[in-house]
């Protein structure tokens, strides 16, 4: 063995030790920040979340207060001065709301509705999927048939029923979205978990006498993560879009408190009208949000995946 090779080997060894010395979080952080695009996306996402949280401080108008909104200001182009002194930076929508303020407030609702319902659905769905895959037999059959019913049930009908029984509101929309989405996660997780379950490492775990829960959550679940995150990031985007569609069909959120989705579907009417700002700006805001969620999601998947040698 020559000295040069020896040094290289040492270097690799050093690197290895350095990695071992890191806490899991540090390692995770280092891995995540490796991708420039993902870092930019993360920064954007954090910025969007902050802006959404502090919307009341940033927005010149409270777009949900009917006393501050006047239909006389409807459809003004960007840059018009308002009677209260501030400028409608991005113009106004069909009801006279300042679009800039409305987008900020709308982001809050869309993010909380989309992300929260996506997350709740993910947790519930994957837990149920795991149980189905691991328990097998009758439990599996019952769960999967419930999934069948759920998947065949149109979201609008669920939303319509909830609306008729409970009325409109953010919480009702979230219930509707969770009800619609959990089945997707359950189906995906079960599919992957079935495959994992029969793999050697699980059998080894069973032989070692590891507890059921430990095998499920420490071994099978992490291995299901890749498809789960893919479906998850897509579904979060989908949840926001779904909320928009429900609002579009008139069963979504109250129209005086528009979410981003509702702003976009309102803007749909104006797409051919030449008043581009009413649909364009909310669209851009939505696009930015979803793209950054997905870029972050992609990177997360790569980083968290135990099987990707990096």
């Amino acid at each position: 063995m020559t000295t040069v090779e020896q040094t290289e080997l040492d270097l690799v060894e050093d690197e290895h030790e350095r990695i071992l010395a890191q806490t899991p979080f540090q390692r995770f952080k280092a891995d995540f920040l490796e991708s420039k695009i993902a870092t930019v996306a993360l920064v954007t996402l954090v910025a969007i979340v902050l802006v959404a949280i502090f919307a009341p401080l940033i927005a010149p108008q409270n777009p949900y207060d009917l006393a501050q909104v006047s239909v006389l200001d409807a459809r003004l182009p960007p840059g018009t001065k308002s009677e209260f002194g501030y400028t409608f930076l991005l113009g106004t929508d069909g009801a006279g709301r300042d679009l800039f303020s409305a987008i900020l407030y709308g982001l809050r609702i869309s993010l909380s509705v989309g992300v929260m319902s996506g997350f709740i659905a993910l947790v519930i769905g994957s837990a149920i999927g795991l149980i189905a895959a691991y328990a097998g037999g009758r439990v599996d059959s019952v769960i999967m048939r419930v999934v069948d019913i759920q998947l065949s049930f149109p979201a609008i009908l669920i939303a319509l029923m909830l609306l008729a029984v409970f009325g409109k509101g953010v919480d009702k929309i979230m219930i509707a979205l969770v009800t619609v989405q959990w089945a997707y996660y359950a189906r995906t997780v079960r599919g992957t978990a079935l495959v994992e379950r029969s793999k050697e490492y699980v059998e080894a775990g069973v032989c070692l006498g590891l507890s059921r829960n430990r095998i499920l959550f420490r071994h099978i679940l992490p291995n299901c993560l890749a498809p789960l995150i893919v479906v998850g990031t897509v579904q979060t985007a989908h949840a926001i879009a779904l909320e928009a569609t429900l609002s579009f069909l008139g069963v979504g959120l109250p129209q005086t408190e528009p979410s981003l989705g509702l702003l976009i579907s309102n803007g749909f009417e104006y797409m051919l009208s030449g008043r581009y700002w009413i649909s364009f700006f909310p669209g851009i805001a939505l696009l930015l949000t979803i793209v950054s969620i997905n870029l972050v999601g992609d990177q997360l998947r790569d980083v968290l995946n135990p099987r990707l040698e990096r």
Partner: protein
Amino acid sequence: MSRVKVIFAAFFAVLIAFSAPAFAKDLKIGLASEPTSIDPHFHNLSPNNALARHIFDRLVHTDENQALVPGLAVSWKPINDTTWEFKLREGVKWHDGSPFTADDVVFTFTRAVNVPNSPSGFGTYLKGKEAVKVDDHTVHIKTPKPYPLMPNDMSTFAIVSKKNGEGAKTEDYNSGKAAIGTGPFKYKAYVPGDKFVFVRNDDYWGDKPIWEEVTLKPIKSSPSRVAALLAGDVDMIAQVPTTDIERLKKEPKVSLSQGVSNRVIYLHLDHDRDNSPFVKAKGGGDIKNPLKDQRVRKAISKAINRDAIVDRVMEDVAIKAGQLLPKGFFGVSPNLKPVDYDPEGAKKLLADAGLKDGFQLTIHGPNDRYINDAKIAEAVAQMLTRIGIKTEVVTMPRSVYFKRASRGGPDKTPEFSFILVGWGAGSGEASSPLKSLIHTHDKSKGFGASNRGRYSNAEVDKLIEDALATVDDAKRQDLLAKATEVAIGDVAIIPLHYQVNTWGTRKGLKYKPRTDEATMAVGVVEE
């Protein structure tokens, strides 16, 4: 020539053959809502009725302004208090060549009210009426009581052929088998969900349409409908959305035809309950229903800036309203003007009523029924909030809305306190809204069916009932106008505006706008 070349040549020949422009005069129309059947008596609703007019005629026709003109009947008159005589047009032929006679009219009277599974039939116009054949071209229609609206009622339903209609089911009309009419077009094809195709009836008794073949395609999504017109895939579309009108006016490929409709958009208020569920004191406590106080109702009416709604929400495609029907219709009052916007006056009225600090209200409205309905509700809420009536907006699809608005409360009473609704006078005269919206809710007499505010005023009731028993047109006109004046003076309802309908055609065509909102191929003319 090589084989490849031959194939190519053949291919292009076929292509050209397929894409050759049709020389026949064809018309394609994009409809906003889909008629559900070709059976003219199956479903008494505007899209179906407009469709039926292509194939079938009625005894009495209505022109663009819903004025009555001769149809299959050339003349009509009351011959005593309870009998009307209709003289039928001679020489009219059904599409299958058989002659049209009084037997067909008598047959229609039985069929129109006996269609199995019909979700909404023509009983409204036919019950209590008996048709008697006098000779082949004379029919007497008898009623138990004097009935002035006979010609109006006779303009609502299609006359079908006895020969083809006996025993025919709705399916037979849809398949074309029984769809034999006397109208300007003949049935050619019906692909459910996709299109209706008609061809010209060259033997038509009236003005022959200029179109040889007409295709009606439902395109529900408004922007798609506009795009189809812009792309030249259809020659005309119904219900151009208000948002696109400004731009389309500048578009060289397109021309627009606009006309006021018979539909008024109005607010109904709870006149009945002392504790109305969606009226609260400032801060949310209970309050004695202030909507029962005429001053409060007047204040609400004054607080609404109708010009702003017409200009900013409706984009100038509406006319502000002061009563139940726009001027020009039978029975409207010449004295009523739209209430002027006067927020100071409104606040003063509120103060007079002891509500200086205002109160809280919820406005309920549909969001898929009338043009810009949800936006109007929101604008009204903004305006009321500004005079101190803190108003919340709740809109919902009509599938949920109308049941709750009509009978969602306890004992099937109306659930809401303050609602946005619209009313189109199908009969084209003022008794229609007066009878249904203003008259006291009375099931036994069939009055006030849509009186969702439960307004009740004995004086108005009497005027309406008198009008409905007066055969003399001039007298009836006065009674209807008087009833309207009293009701509007008492703010029974708050009218906002009349809808204006817009049809878009490709350049070179024009549509004669109709107050009844119907879209019909015969109305499309070349400029």
